[in-house]
């Protein structure tokens, strides 16, 4: 899942990016409102973490322009402003969640996960397909008592496919949602990741859940009996 962090504090944005990356997210960072808005409009993010006090364009203006352009990306406001009026204003302008600094990184990640699940229509943090249990909160995939050992990228890939269960997902979409702008996925990196993921899923006896639709992409669905 790909997240945009718009935060002017270099240190805070760096460590939030690191924390989210550790949790398996692809993260882009912008340090001012204009850059943040440009990135938000240019890419497809699953969630945006937005500071309010930003140079060039403040957070509320970024939010307003984003919504005015019809972007429905879930936005979490992360700010030092803690008054009720500020919270209400942020939520009124179209934010989906509000977190005040200082915050627990675990809470920030949990809230981001909740926003992403909500954007794909899920409420339960544990997704399931073909006997696999994907715990998006604990970042664990298991089948029965057996646990799959997945890399951060593989987990993100599986999570994204399951979030779009039954839909054909193109390679481009996978690249846009799994890789951040600093990563330059080679032409077959998605195919390789899918290949490795299939093999790991098969090792726990879940069968071939991921199907290839030639020329279109991949689809994950329960195996038909």
């Amino acid at each position, binding site marked *: 899942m790909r997240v945009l962090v718009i935060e002017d504090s270099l240190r805070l944005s760096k*460590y*939030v990016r690191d924390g989210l990356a550790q949790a398996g997210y692809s993260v882009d960072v912008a340090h001012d409102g204009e850059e943040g808005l440009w990135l938000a409009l240019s890419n497809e993010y699953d969630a945006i973490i937005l500071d309010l006090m930003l*140079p060039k364009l403040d957070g509320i203006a970024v939010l307003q322009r984003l919504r005015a352009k019809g972007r429905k990306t879930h936005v979490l406001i992360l700010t*030092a402003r803690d008054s009720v009026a500020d919270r209400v204003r942020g939520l009124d302008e179209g934010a989906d969640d509000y977190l005040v*600094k200082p*915050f627990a990184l675990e809470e920030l990640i949990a809230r981001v996960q909740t926003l992403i699940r909500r954007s794909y229509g899920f409420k339960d943090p544990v997704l399931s397909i073909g006997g696999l249990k994907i715990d998006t909160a604990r970042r664990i995939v298991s089948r029965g008592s057996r646990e799959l050992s997945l890399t951060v990228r593989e987990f993100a890939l599986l999570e994204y496919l399951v979030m779009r269960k039954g839909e054909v997902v193109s390679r481009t979409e996978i690249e846009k949602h799994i890789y951040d702008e600093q990563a330059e996925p080679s032409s077959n990196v998605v195919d390789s990741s899918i290949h490795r993921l299939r093999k790991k899923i098969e090792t726990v006896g879940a069968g071939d859940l991921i199907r290839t639709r030639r020329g279109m992409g991949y689809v994950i669905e329960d195996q038909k009996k």
Partner: protein
Amino acid sequence: MRSIRSQLILTLVVCVSILFAAASTALYVYARDALQTQFDEALTTRILSFSEMAEAQVKDDRIFYEFEFDEFPLPEFQPSADAEYYEVWRDDDSVLIRSASLKNRDLPRIAVDDALPALGDVPLPDGRRGRAVALWFSPLIESDDESPTMETGRRASRLYMTMARSRESLDGALLGLLFGFGAMWGLLVAGLAVTIRWSVGRGLRPLEKIAHDAAAIESTDLSHRFQTDGLPRELNPIGQRLNELLGRLDEAFQRERRFNADVAHELRTPIAELRTLAEVALKKTTSSETEPSHGEYFTDVFDIAVQMESMMTALLSLVRSEAGRLDIAREPVDLTALIEKSAALFQEEMARKKISAEFAHPESAIVESDGTLVSSILTNLFSNAVGHAPPGGSVRCALVETDRGFTLSLTNTNDQLVEEDLVHLLEPFWQKDPSRTEATRNGLGLSIVAAYAAALGLILETALRAEGLFEITLFFPPPEN
């Protein structure tokens, strides 16, 4: 609790009632006297005319009296419920004649000092309260055609006549008048109470509106203003003063809000950085995926600590200064030396930003002040000038001596500031950039300069000069001796 309405109503009703009572009393006394006079005049006229109707005749050296009104008695002197009375005495107090209504009784005599009629209240024989008039008079001796005498044309010996009538009609009229005035007074008081209550209520309605408007003001929103257009002339200034007060409160409220937000930002952001950094570092330390790189973390931890320490030190200095808890030790201080020392701290930054510096000051400039505080002022001023001058900009420091002491001007290029910013420049935490991105500046420098300058009795002025130049000027007054 005192009520303006009740007080106004009570005061007005009492005052108007007293005034009306006084006016009524005066009117009553005037009317009573007029009626009494009229009554007395009628009585006096009558006794005078009766006295004129008396004649005397001398026969055989004896005087005989004739009273026309006795010979042809008038009906009002006949016995009846509202009879009137008269009685005439000789000089020797023997009764000469009396009205039939007296039925051989006597009227009380009242004292008559001279020839004029005397008046007085007397009890009438039938028990009624009466008014009597009496006079001494001497009837004219008339001639008898058959036996004329020498006495003709002279006056007979004097007689005392009294005449009385009931004064109940007069008393009744006076009582009616008294009751009339009393009833009018009562009605007026009641009418006044109602009218004044209505009028005062109507007059106080704008006050009630102000109270209603004031009640609608929320503690979190002071943008409300009272409508002064419809207010009466007396309340208009109050409305305007209240609006001005609200404006000042709103300004202070906004300043407080900005201050809180700025403090929150200044404290929360580094704490958030520290906490996030620690959480990420802990995860990396326990994770097998990534090698921990402690050096980078510790550098950031150190920088954050320095930033917070700097902010806390500045904030404490400011609070101490504003609370008047600065220890000021005045001594001869060389401003030139302190300027050079403070400027030297920023040489590296000026070189890095390619800022041109220009200094104009005497070789030595001794003032009586606190060296530590002046040094802090100069350091903050240079930090501000160098920090806000754009790359390639300029900083100019000029110190001149005048007959009013030393004047220090520090000018730097700054094309961001506008005239409206000058009022905020000395506010704690104020920064031109509302996002407060720059971690090395906290917006307390000029506030500390202002606080220290005030503590030392220095005058501080800020101004925007032409071509994007910001100038801050400090006046060091000469020693007071």
